């Protein structure tokens, strides 16, 4: 069979790795056989793509940062959803309390930013988007954009930095300021005039 030929192999007959002990050979270096028969096993195109919940169904917070992040993202999503259901003009205290809880989850998520560059950049943007609103409430469009970004992050926590940039653009398009205030000061600074600082 020439290399590269795709033949359908029953997955059940195809363990994670073949040639396990039981019959050690006496080759000089005792290297384990690692051949996978030279064939390529392809899944059908309609095989489902696993969600985080399907990939990690049995884990809890003790099982690492990704699982903690998924729980905190769910908490954050819930708080912003609840805040979006409150009219801040009628009950600002309840609205603010929900947003403070969401901010608290985001702070904890920021501590998990080692999960990936894309994750860190997205959480950072969400944190500053809320903080820069100060005492002003999020508009309906801003709330739904934030919820969308959090949902996408929960579905793909290890997202690539370039994918995160698209999410950040979405936030900025809804007129959220996602950068800390001093960044503007730094970017406006003329390189020839350090005294301006």
């Amino acid at each position, binding site marked *: 069979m020439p*290399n*590269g030929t795709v033949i359908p192999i029953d*997955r*059940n007959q195809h*363990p*994670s*790795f073949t040639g*396990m*002990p*039981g*019959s*050690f050979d*006496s080759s000089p270096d005792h*290297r*384990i056989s*690692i051949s*996978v028969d030279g064939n*390529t*096993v*392809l*899944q059908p195109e309609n*095989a*489902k*793509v*696993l*969600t*985080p919940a*399907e*990939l*990690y*169904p*049995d*884990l809890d917070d003790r*099982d*690492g*940062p*990704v*699982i903690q992040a998924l729980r905190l993202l769910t908490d954050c999503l819930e708080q912003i959803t609840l805040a979006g259901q409150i009219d801040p003009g009628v009950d600002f205290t309840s609205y603010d309390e929900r947003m403070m809880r969401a901010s608290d989850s985001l702070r904890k998520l920021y501590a998990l930013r080692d*999960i990936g560059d*894309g994750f860190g950049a997205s959480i950072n943007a969400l944190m500053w988007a809320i903080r820069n609103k100060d005492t002003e409430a999020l508009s309906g469009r801003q709330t739904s954009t934030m919820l969308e970004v959090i949902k996408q992050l929960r*579905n*793909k*926590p*290890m*997202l*690539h930095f370039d*994918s995160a940039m698209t999410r950040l653009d979405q936030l900025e398009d809804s007129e959220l300021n996602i950068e800390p205030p001093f960044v503007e000061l730094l970017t406006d600074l003329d390189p020839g005039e350090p005294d301006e600082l």
Partner: protein
Amino acid sequence: MKSLEELALEFCVFELRYNPSPMIWDAAGSIWTSAIAANPSLAFALAQPNQQVFETDSLQLTLDITTLRVIGRGENALAEVSRNASLLLKIISEKLKLQTFTRAGLRIIRSKVFESSPQALKAAAVSIDEESPAFGKDARKVGFAKNTRFETDESGLLASLRVEEREFSFTIPWESRPRIGAKLNRKEWVVVSDLDYYTVGKIDREVFDVETWLRQAVKKMEREWSAI
């Protein structure tokens, strides 16, 4: 022998499959340079266009056009496999431009060695007194295997308990035979726990954290083993 702790960790294998990636022909050197920078003890073992192998004394890393495989041996195998798989996943997803994986698998083999088959069978709680329907009273039971495989739409697990005979046979080079002899033979009986957990669906790179997934796999294995 129901407890996995009674068995010594022999091999741990993490395998990640993806659709054929021709980028391997461009990126192999860059991938292994990054891997060696992170783990300087890696030594070159094999390099071909479609497959490269690097090793340490307790670790073997293989990358080919459709598969990444990390094999560890010894009591720290799982931790070492976890650390190196995580490192290589980051490198290859970037350099091979992989967005989707078709299958992830973790296989863990634990074993305990005995000097005779009755000892091994007894340790595995297998009756040695029952009579063979085919051979009658004269036949001795010398091996045993029990396998179960369960699958969902998301993942699957093959659990195997075996009592098997292993024979090592080494032929000694002609010039050394006066001192050592012509052959070295060793026979042993081993109780083996062989657990293979794998995904059935595809995996998006942006969801996949190897270390978390390995912890998940180990939990599933321990639960399945308790029922075998």
